[in-house]
Structures are given as structure tokens and as C-alpha cells.
């Protein structure tokens, strides 16, 4: 249903678009129509800290003064949250096209690159994951899973669903909780699935949104070859960033599979799933809309639908929700810029978000993204709050309530 082949308007831009030829592209014509209203700067979570807000960047680009922008570090502060793009009254593809191009050129000119970010990118290039773990251990988490997790290269047959596990959900402890939960849910629903195991490499969304188009293309080339090795009907991933990459960027390279994120994917099965959710959790939950599933793809109800299916769960909303949700700060490379932001005296967005979650009085901050688990759990350690709060992925809550026959 989300195939960009059927919806070409979802793709980002023509390959080979750069800052020099941007204004000649259809996306550039929209930029020429900018009315300098400042919505982008006003909604930007780090707009306060940018010397050149998206609005000013457009003004400078149109005046041929973009070099000045590229000398500043403004774009390093963009966390690719899509807020400016979704609210832009002129429909300018800010987060999809303009800002990554500016970010790319900013970083090429930067005297020094933030070390964490550099390591992550180098690791992703060498090991296929930003943490620099051995690619041979990518499927090691499956040993922890109580439910069977078939691997493509081993089962040697076509499957319905290729589950693209992704990095955080393969290597990090709390991410593995997410993966084990998904494995249980898939098994309980009788979904015919398999994973790529050690053959999988990072989808590269953060690379792309960070600026690193070369890295992104290297990963795209690699993953496309692997996909072609196997037969499957659709790709499902628990990582909104991989989902984003497959949905809007891979089609530029000829990718045309049906793509789902686990949250909307499982929501399609909610009728089948609900009778199996027998263990009441008795929790008040607030749901955080991730940028790539929410704002960028428009899946706002699906996470809530799944939570409502769990007996005993009561949903409360944060002040900023749905399209107005506040980013966890992890996108566009923000995941590896915490130290850099700290040096610049910038508030951590995860902390801003967690304050809103705490204000709801919920027991659980539910998320649909493996990045957010880390960011919000960390933020909860630093933001004082009286009532205990935990961060759980929607799939973890579902699995907790699940009683297998």
C-alpha cells in the first residue's frame, strides 16, 4: 500500500539533485515560491539555536548567498524531524531535499566533524552498523528470542514478510527486547517471515539525513543486491528510519517492494491480535509519535489502536501529539551529536519531550522506534519526576499482554 511505485509523489527528488541545480528542479520551483513566513523556523525544535533558520537558508539560496550558510554550523542542528516540512504552507520539501543538501555541504566544509558522528559514519561504512559491532554478530540476538526467528539464507524458500531488523534492534540490549517481542507477535499471528541475519546491513537513513549520500548509496547498493537474492512479498521493519529510507529514498534507486513499519503493520492485524492479548497491563500510557512514522508517513492512529487493544491500558495525550509531536532529537544524526549539542549549550530534545510525558501522569511512555527507548530512558534519568515512568516500545507492551495458546 505504501509502494512509491504507485505513489511517485512520495519520492524525494531526482537522483543527482544538488544545491547547484536544485532551483531548476520541481522541488526548487517550490522553493522559489517561498513566502518567508517563518513557519519552518518557528516550529523547528532547535530554531532558537540556528544562525541560519530554514527560512533564512531559502532566502540566502535564492540570493546566491548559500556559501555563507555553509560556513555556519546551523544545519548540524537539524534533527530531520520533518516539522518544518509538514507545516510549510508552500509545500517545500525542506527535510526531504533542501536541508540534507545544505547539511551535506556544511559538513564537507566543516573544519572538524563531531567525533561521535564521525565514528558512527565510519563504523556504518565498515561494519554496516553505527556502533561498530562485528557484522558477524548481527543475528546473535536471535539466541535470546523464545520464539523462532528463521533466517533467509537457511530456510531457502520464499516468505511473505522479510523482516528487516536493523541495527539498534540487533545489537543493543533494549533494542533486542523489541526484536524478541516482534518475533513473538509474528509467531503468534502466524506470519510467514524470515530475517536476513548477518547479511543485513544498516538501511542508511541516518546516513542520508546526516548528509552522507555516498555512504547511503553504498548501503543502498549493498542491500538492493541482498534483496534480489531472495523472494518475499513485503518488507517489514521495526525501525522508522529504515522504513523511511525504504519508503521515500530507496525507490530513487529502483526499489519497489511493499514496505511496512511494525506498528502500522501489526495494526492491520489488530482484530486477530486482540483476542490473544489476555494479560491486562493496567497502565496509563502516553504515546509518542515518531517523526518518520507520524509526520512523514501519516500513521498517527495505528500505534494508539494497538495500545487500545491491550486490556487495562488507558491512553493519555501529551500536549504536543500527532503531527505536532516533539522529536526525540535522534534523527538526522542527532543520535550521535549529543555531546556536540551539549557543547553548544543546547537543550536535549528528549528531555523536552519527557517533561511533557511526565506532565501527563502516565506510567509508560510508549514509542514505536528503537532510538527513542535510549533517548527517553536517558532523559528520564536526568529529569526529576515523582511518579515512576518507563519507556516501552508498543511491540513490547503487546508482547507482554500476549498469551500464546
Amino acid at each position, binding site marked *: 500500500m505504501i509502494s512509491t511505485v504507485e505513489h511517485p509523489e512520495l519520492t524525494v527528488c531526482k537522483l543527482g539533485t544538488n544545491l547547484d541545480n536544485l532551483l531548476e528542479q520541481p522541488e526548487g520551483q517550490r522553493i522559489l515560491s517561498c*513566502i*518567508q*513566513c*517563518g*513557519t*519552518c*523556523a*518557528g*516550529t523547528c525544535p532547535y*530554531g*532558537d539555536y540556528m544562525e541560519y*533558520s530554514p*527560512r*533564512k537558508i531559502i532566502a540566502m539560496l535564492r540570493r546566491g548567498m548559500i556559501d555563507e550558510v555553509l560556513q555556519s554550523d546551523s544545519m548540524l542542528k537539524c534533527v530531520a524531524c520533518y516539522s518544518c516540512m509538514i*507545516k*510549510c*504552507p*508552500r*509545500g517545500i520539501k525542506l527535510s526531504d531535499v533542501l536541508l540534507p543538501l545544505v547539511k551535506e555541504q556544511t559538513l564537507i566544509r566543516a573544519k572538524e566533524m563531531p567525533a561521535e558522528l564521525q565514528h558512527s559514519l565510519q563504523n556504518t561504512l565498515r561494519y554496516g552498523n553505527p556502533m561498530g559491532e562485528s557484522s558477524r554478530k548481527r543475528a546473535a540476538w536471535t539466541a535470546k528470542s523464545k520464539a523462532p526467528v528463521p533466517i533467509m539464507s537457511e530456510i531457502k524458500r520464499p516468505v511473505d514478510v522479510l523482516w528487516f531488523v536493523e541495527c539498534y534492534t540487533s545489537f543493543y540490549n533494549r533494542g533486542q527486547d523489541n526484536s524478541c517481542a516482534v518475533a513473538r507477535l509474528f509467531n503468534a499471528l502466524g506470519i510467514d517471515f524470515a530475517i536476513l541475519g548477518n547479511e543485513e546491513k544498516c538501511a542508511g537513513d541516518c546516513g542520508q539525513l546526516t548528509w552522507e549520500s555516498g555512504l547511503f548509496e553504498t548501503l543502498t547498493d549493498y542491500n538492493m543486491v541482498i534483496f534480489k537474492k531472495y523472494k518475499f512479498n513485503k518488507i517489514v521493519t521495526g525501525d522508522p528510519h529504515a522504513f523511511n529510507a525504504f519508503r521515500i529514498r530507496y525507490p530513487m534507486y529502483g526499489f519497489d517492494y511493499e514496505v511496512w513499519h511494525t506498528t502500522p503493520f501489526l495494526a492491520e492485524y489488530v482484530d486477530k491480535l486482540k483476542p490473544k492479548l489476555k494479560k491486562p497491563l493496567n497502565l496509563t500510557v502516553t504515546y509518542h509519535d515518531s517523526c518518520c512514522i507520524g509526520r512523514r508517513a501519516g500513521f498517527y492512529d495505528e500505534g494508539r489502536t494497538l495500545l487500545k487493544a491491550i486490556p487495562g491500558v488507558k491512553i493519555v495525550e501529551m*500536549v*504536543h501529539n*500527532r*503531527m*505536532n509531536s516533539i522529536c526525540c532529537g535522534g534523527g538526522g544524526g542527532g543520535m550521535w551529536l549529543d555531546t556536540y549539542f551539549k557543547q553548544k549549550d543546547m537543550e536535549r530534545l528528549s528531555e523536552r519531550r519527557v*517533561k*511533557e510525558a511526565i*506532565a501527563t501522569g502516565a506510567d509508560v511512555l510508549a514509542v514505536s522506534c528503537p532510538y527513542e527507548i535510549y533517548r527517553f530512558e536517558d532523559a528520564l534519568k536526568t529529569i526529576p519526576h515523582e511518579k515512576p515512568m518507563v519507556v516501552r516500545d508498543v511491540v513490547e507492551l503487546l508482547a507482554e499482554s500476549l498469551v500464546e495458546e
Partner: protein
Amino acid sequence: MPTTPIKNEPVKIGYYICHCGTNIASVIDVDAVAKYISKLPNVVVSRNYKYMCSDPGQKLIEDDIAKYQLNRIVVAACSPLLHETTFRNATRKGGLNPFYFQMVNVREHNAWVHSDREQATRKAIELSRAAVERVSLHKPLEIRKLPINPNVLIVGGGIAGIHAALVLANAGKHVYLVEREPTIGGHMAKFDKTFPTLDCAACVLTPKMAAVGKHPNITLWTYSDVVKVDGYVGNYKVTVRRRPRYVIEELCTGCLECIDACIYKEPKFSDEFNLGLGKRKPVYIPFAQAIPSIATIDANTCIELKTGKCKKTCVDACGDRKAIDFKQKEELKEITVGAVIITTGFKTFDARRILYYGYGVYPNVITSLEAERLLNAAGPTSGEFLTRDGRKPKQIAIIHCVGSRDENTNKWCSRVCCLYSLKLAHLIHERTEAEVFNFYIDMRTPGKSMEEFYNRVAEEGVNFVRGRVADIYPDPSDGSTGHLVVQAEDTLLGKILKVPVDMVVLSVGLEPDPASENIRKMFNLSCGSEGWFLERHPKLAPVSSFNEGIFIAGCCQGPKDIPDTVAQAGAAAAEAFSIIDLGNIEIEPNTAYIIESECSGCKSCIPLCPYSAISFDTEKHKSVINEALCKGCGTCVAACPSGSIVQNLFEDEEIISEINGLLEPIEVK
């Protein structure tokens, strides 16, 4: 009377291509075209001229007809929809039947849409050649005249409908004014004061409303809808449904006693006129100066109408007047009118559609129309402008362009919002002494005295922030006191502002009213992609529709302020008047007729005609077209298997010669 050339007289064609200044000549090599056409058979004169539509241009045609005994004229210029009549007249003045003329569109369909000179010139030659071939076959035709019904229907009783109705009624014409609400007055009746003069809307509107109510030439049907339209210019047959208001209009005196006596002691139901800010009873009059000043009983909330088990205290209160009738049924009225004016108005943008402005979530985020009601002395708060929790606001934000200039909602500028936002800023500041922040994208104050009004409001100390608001949220430092933060970039300073306020007014834009879509369909009006009704020509026919005798005025055509609405309404009234006052109307002679000798009597054509203009002569066993009913679409012509139907002006041979003229091989140079 035009002279008719003698049959078999050799065809002598005069061809003229217009430069239209540089509009045409800068793209098309008009010299080359004229030269090429001059060599075609039967072409006697072929010229190019700077402005064919000018007096000397028309004179050129007349003189050439006399000088060269021309009997056919072809002009290549702009769209025939613009100047066909002009050149037909010139042809007639030269002494020819005006239909010995053919026009070629080389401006809108050529020079303005192409830039390759060679290709455009070639296209002009081919189009001209087609016209030259076609015009040879033209026949002399007479313009038809049809009688006209002198009454006018006006749909929509806002200020546009009211004004148009009064203009026509005062000129002695009978007007039917149909309004779907229980009262006329429209949006204007809800406003407090009007920009830039700050005179109160009610003071200028209600006298006009009253005049409509008592005018002998106006039949006012409120609480009514148009449900069916038939006929054509001069003779539109319209069916109007009068919904039951369960009060007999002729007997009700508007004394309000039934309302006082209603079994509901206190008003309980959401008051539509006050946008739900106040309450009403099941029996109500929308506001004090409503016209007609007659009670209406709402079937959805009246106990009697819902259950039949009410004590009917209202009936008792009405007493001898016996105006209340719970058995009232809807009534269908059929009327015939010569012309129609559509003034169905607009709808305000539903601010819920912009999620980040929190309308419907935060009680102190209100729309501009709600602000008007709160400011209005006759409104639900008697003009006290307070927050929903009853506080006197100290800081207020007014947000311009809500649902305007936005690809995600409505693309257009709603034109009145800047000015009414300035007005609201002035009124709110005056009433509450609150500090007012107007957030705008561009300040648009065109028109007489409007910029001066902007100056005045600025000097009063309203804070203008050039920046579109990106977020509105409850003040996190403030617990649950209802204070809001408005966040926007001040684009002139390049700074992000977070302004704490007590209230936010969303200046909602104007959009086409989806409820008038069925009106549009019934009257066969065109609309743009946005849904505004389309005028026949944006400059030269701004209140005409594409249908003869149907006019549009006010905001159903596009956003506009009260002065422009009234001006348009007056213009529409005058246009309608110019049709109905003639007594009869000239009709393009493009009707179809049947060549009796060739008709096989197969009846294929009969069910095709949407106007039932074709009947069957059972004696002769032939179909017959009633010329008076035929509207000249040509659908039957295309269907006739024996080719016995001919459409004047669009004869098969004429069209085929046109096709041929377009496609013959061409040798340029």
C-alpha cells in the same frame, strides 16, 4: 436588413490577421501568414493590421467589402468568445449577413501559448486556412428572438442577495429571494463593526433587511431551498422547497410570547446564529432584528415534534393568533423567472484542520467569527470580551492567514482577513485594554481608506509580528491556568518569539460553501478547482456565468469585502435587469433542423434531446425539431444515421472543410 449574396455568386474572401499590438505579432510572423492566405483560392484580400478590433480595424473590413465586393470575412485575432460579435457587426455594417464571418483564435490558442516562431506561424496558417475553407460554405442566418419572463430569482439572502433584490425590486421588477436559514442577513448580520469605517454592521444592514421584508415586489422565502431548475434564459422554471417552520408566517407577529412560554424555561440548545457560543430554545428567532421576524420551531429539539407529548405551552401563549401549526408540511413552489442571481456566499475555514493551532482543544483559542459574536453587544456575552473561564484577557494573539495561503488547506489569499484582523485588534484593544499581537505573513490592505486604517491601528499600539505562527500550546510553567504560548519566528528580527497570551483569535479564511454545491449543479455553473463559482470572464464579465441569464455575485464567486460584494450585487442586478427589461432575447442561430426529405423516421434523435425539442410527426413519419426549444448543442446531429439533421453554424460540411483546411500539406516559403 443584411443583403444576401445572390446564389452561385463567386465567393470572395477577405482575410485579416491582427497584430494585437505585439501580443500576436511578436510570436507569429503575421506578414507570412497574410501572404500565404492571399494565395488561396477565392481569397481576394489578405491583410495584417495592428488592432483589428479598433474602429479603423473594423472600418478596414467595411471598406474592403465595398471596394472588392467581398462576401466572406475571416479575422484571425483573439478568442471568438471575446470579439466574435465585434467582427460580425463589422461584417454586417459592410452590408453582409453577419454569419458570413469566421474567426480564428491565434492569440489565446497560439501566440500566448507558444514561443517557437516557426511553429506558431505554421499553426496560424493552418488555422486560418481551415477558416477560409469553412467560411466559403457559410449560409446567411437570422438571429432568433425569444420572449422573456420579467421576474428574477435570487438564491441566498446575505448582503449580496439583499442588495440585488432591492435594486431590482425598486426598479419595479418582481424578485423571489430564497434563503435556507430562518432569517436573511448572512454572515454580515453576525459581524460587530465593519472595517475601515468601524460603523456597526447591524446599523447598516438591518434597515436593508427590513426593506426586503416589506417590499411589495419581493417574495421572501426563508428556511427554503431551490430543488429543481429547468428551462433556459428568459424562461427558467424553478422549484423551491419551503421547509416547515411549524409557524404560519402570515399569522405570526413576532411577539416572542411563544418563546417565553416554551416548556424549556431556560435556553438549552446550541444557538447556530451565535456559533454555539449561546443557547436557544426549540422555538426561537435567531436574533432581534431577524427578517422575517417570525418564530421557527426546530424539529430536532422540540418535544412536541419529537414525541408528540408536550404540553404545548407555546400554542396556549399564541392564543387567538393560532400561528403555531405542528402539522405544517413542506411545500413545493414552482416559479418562472427570466434571470437568476446566485449569491450563496461562503463558509469560514474550519480551524480544526490546522492541528497545531489547537482549535477545539484549547477553549481560549477562538475563531475570528466567534470573536465578532463575543464583541457584539447583541451577542451571547452582551459584548463582553472574556476568556472562556471568564477572565479579562491581558494579552491576546490574533493570527492571520488561518486556512489561507497554505498548500495544506487553501491556497488562496482570503483577502478580507488582514483587514478584519486589524479591526478585531482595534476593537479588542479598545474593549479590554489587552496587549494585542497580530501575527501576519504579509499585511494586505488594498482599497480605499484601508492603508489609513492600518496606520491608525498601528499607532494605537497593536504589536505587529511578521511571522506565521508555528505552534500554540499551554504554558508549561503555568500549570492549568489556561494561559497559552504562541510560538513564531519574528522574521524581521530573525528571532523565535514565544508570546504568552490569554486568548488566541484565529483569523479564518473564506472558502466555498460545500452546501452550495447542489445549487451549482442545478444551475450548471462552472467552478474553479478551489470551488469558487466561475465568472464568464475575470475582467469583462465578472458577474456573468457561462449560462445566459444566470449571474453570480458576492463571495460565492471568491472572497471579497462588503463594499465589493455590494458592488457586484448591484452589477448582477443591472445585468439581470438588462435581460428581463428587453422583453425578448437574441439567440445565436445555431439551432438544428431536419431535412424532411431525408429523415427516415428512425426516432434515434428523439430520446437524445435534453430539452425535448424533437417530436415525431406520426402522419409524415418524420422527426421535427421545435426551433424555439432547441438550444443548439448538436448532439442529435451527431447521432442521426441518415445525416438528415443540420446544425446551423456547425454543419457537417463546414466542420469537415475545417478539418481538411487544417490538415492539407503545407508549403511554407
